[in-house]
């Protein structure tokens, strides 16, 4: 018993104090760590691909009118799985290595985007004119499904 106790103390002594000086010195996360969700609102076209594939269902898309689409991301429920980043065809979503997300108010973890959806004159699908100049010129309607639920 005494021998094993001495051996244990030696292990503890040899390891020395391994504590990291974390809050006082920054400690970067491993490369490839899926941390905070950042949205590049310019690239996002509001296609809803991320909403479709998010396991936590924390991305909600609402079409207030044929022109305006509101995307709400409740990131307090986000499980940081990175699926939305993979699926986003326009590379608008990125999970960077930032993990210091503690807040005192739940609303800080909420991202809301309000997109003006111009329409593509060829296929009628909605897209956002890339430059402000294009947006000025575009006028027109996007024929949504009529109200009895039959899709175009």
């Amino acid at each position, binding site marked *: 018993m005494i021998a094993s106790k001495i051996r244990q103390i030696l292990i503890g002594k040899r390891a020395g104090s391994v504590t990291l000086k*974390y*809050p006082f010195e920054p400690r970067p996360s491993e490369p490839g760590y899926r941390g905070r969700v950042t949205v590049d609102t310019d690239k996002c076209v509001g296609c809803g691909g991320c909403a479709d594939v998010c396991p936590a269902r924390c991305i*909600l898309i609402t079409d207030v009118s044929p022109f305006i689409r509101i995307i709400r991301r409740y990131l*307090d429920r986000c499980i940081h799985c990175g699926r939305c980043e993979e699926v986003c065809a326009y590379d608008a979503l990125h999970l960077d290595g930032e993990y210091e997300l503690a807040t*005192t108010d*739940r609303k800080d*973890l909420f991202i809301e985007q309000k997109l003006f959806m111009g329409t593509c004159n060829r296929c009628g699908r909605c897209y956002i004119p890339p430059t402000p100049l294009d947006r000025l010129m575009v006028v027109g309607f996007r024929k949504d499904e009529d109200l009895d639920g039959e899709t175009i």
Partner: protein
Amino acid sequence: MKEGFIRKFHSKAFGRSLWVFHTNVGACNGCDIEVLDVLTPFFDVERFGIKLVGSPRHADVLLVTGPVTRPMVEPLKRLYEAVPSPKLVVAIGACAVGGCVWFDTYNVIGGVDKVIPVDIYIPGCPPKPEAIIYGVALALGLVPKKVGPAIESHEIPMEVEDILKELTPSRPVALPVNPDGKNDNGKQDGEGA
């Protein structure tokens, strides 16, 4: 004098010694293991005088993990009553903050703040031990807060504005786009963010 001086000195002492009571109200014990991980040699929160205690009577900080399942609502309320008054509640993990994947199923209430008032939210599934330490340091006032709400909206051309005016009836005609079949105009349960 007695009130002012000693009470001020006491609030400093309060900062240096936080006794923590960890409770799991339905979590998958991913966050619980990270909470325990915070005590181990690499992160060692005993530097701030943080110690895990067994009884709520001794606790200052309530570390709550997990979405409050329905059988756990009453015990959680009793626990909140059992902690002496200057107390902090820290919700750890996506489950405690918002209810994670199962925020609206039949046996889950959703976030902890629907049952007891919460002071610090630490999202993440599970949050890294460093994130938990950051949350506690935030409570201690050692570090600034890094996140904030983001509201983005594109500017809308003038002529579309006036078209919109007569087009949109009083209640916007909204069509649900999200896969879970939730009609957004009907209240998204618990989401009044």
